[in-house]
């Protein structure tokens, strides 16, 4: 099968003439090469979504095959940087799934009050929207000064963005709406200052936040936590990698610690299901009980 010479008109993939078996080989070779050369391990990412993201990058670079993309990223670290952004950024929102935060406030906060000191891990925090959401919630519950939040991501560039605390102004209407539905107690605009097209969030929200690089695929546990947030990150991993990360989370939670997953993620297909009980029937909040 010849490599197609014209660019696909589609936004996310090659033309139908592209051989899918060959494509799989190319993707595996690219990910193997990236791992061996740069140390970033995407080999156990969910195939359908990483494939979309690789093609998006290939098309943005004006390329028509994954092999071409492999040559580019292996020889040009700056191209690798760009691809790393595509592969590791998860798109999220402040107070995404407001009912989740409402239940967190109602059901989890009372548990957290019983601890003198609270350690929280936002694993795969991306650009930090949910870190700021948690910080706001804890601030309103009077718990932020008792808490330390570890916000980690594989990607340094998004961590810098998270640390800066500037979010697009045009999202504030949506976030305000989410905040209110999540049981917010103040006026959302108290937390940020609008400047040009950005909303700068109050630096005091991150006074107890530590931003640091951590790779869920290759790095070990680095502490024991009362709460671990990992929402809509595991969806990008295949089932084996999900199991490995669940082992990491289990080892990193104190007994009776809370694991918070995305609304369509579950422990149902995991061997750790029996180690947790549900905090709430609908929201994906689990408590480690054994």
């Amino acid at each position: 099968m010849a490599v197609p010479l014209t660019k696909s008109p589609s936004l996310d993939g090659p033309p139908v003439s592209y051989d899918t078996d060959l494509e799989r080989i190319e993707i595996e070779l690219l990910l193997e090469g990236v791992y061996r050369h740069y140390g970033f391990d995407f080999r156990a990412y969910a195939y359908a979504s990483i494939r979309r993201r690789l093609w998006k990058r290939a098309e943005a670079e004006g390329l028509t095959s994954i092999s071409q993309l492999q040559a580019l990223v292996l020889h040009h670290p700056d191209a690798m940087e760009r691809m790393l952004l595509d592969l590791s950024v998860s798109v999220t929102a402040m107070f995404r799934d407001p009912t989740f935060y409402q239940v967190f406030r109602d059901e989890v906060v009372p548990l957290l009050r019983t601890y003198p000191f609270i350690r929280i891990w936002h694993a795969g925090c991306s650009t930090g929207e949910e870190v700021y959401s948690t910080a706001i919630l804890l601030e309103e519950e009077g718990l932020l000064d008792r808490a330390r939040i570890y916000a980690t991501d594989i990607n340094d560039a998004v961590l810098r963005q998270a640390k800066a605390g500037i979010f697009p102004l045009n999202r504030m209407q949506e976030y305000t709406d989410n905040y209110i539905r999540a049981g917010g107690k103040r006026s959302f605009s108290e937390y940020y200052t609008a400047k040009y097209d950005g909303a700068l969030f109050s630096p005091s929200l991150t006074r107890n936040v530590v931003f640091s690089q951590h790779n869920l695929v290759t790095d070990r546990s680095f502490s024991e936590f009362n709460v671990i947030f990992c929402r809509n990150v595991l969806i990008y991993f295949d089932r084996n990698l999900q199991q490995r990360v669940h082992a990491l989370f289990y080892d990193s939670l104190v007994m009776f610690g809370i694991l918070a997953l995305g609304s369509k993620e579950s422990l149902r297909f995991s061997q750790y299901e029996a180690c947790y009980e549900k905090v709430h029937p609908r929201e994906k909040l689990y408590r480690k009980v054994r």
Partner: protein
Amino acid sequence: MAYEIVVVGTSWGGLTALRELITGLPGALGVPVVVVQHRHRQSNHVMATLLQDETPLCVCEAEDKAPLEAGNVYVAPADYHLLVERGFLSLSTDEPVRFSRPSIDVTFRSAADAYGAHTVGVILTGANADGAEGLRRIVDRGGLAFVQLPATAESPAMPAAALDAVPQARVLTIEEIARAIAELPSPVERAS
């Protein structure tokens, strides 16, 4: 040709159309059905519940990595893209495609690429052109396409766009599409 998966896309008017389609399906179906309907990002599981009321088939909102099982109806959750892999489903929060998440095109393309000629795509009522390109991909891979007769659609734009992209699609009423799906040769029937 045995079919292994049915993917259905719809937007405006979709709930009524889906109820009719689901009601028309037999209680035992040899393939999984994956449904993508555009809806507000904060809408919840109510749609799956409403559809469940119409059928003995098991209707659920798709969870990440859920195995695809014959006779189950999987509804794409609001605010996620739903990707079909061979034997299971995957979710993604990547950017909306043409303002839609879930995007019908994304799901249809992934189904066509995972199941090739064993894929059946169905486009029902809707107010935009999402799904046309995905349906094209299904047919290009040798799969089967059904489009709701535009004159019978609450909003004919989506079926019409699908027909522009896939002129060879079978154009039927919802009732006829349900019957055609029921009569498709499926792997289960073939094995029995």
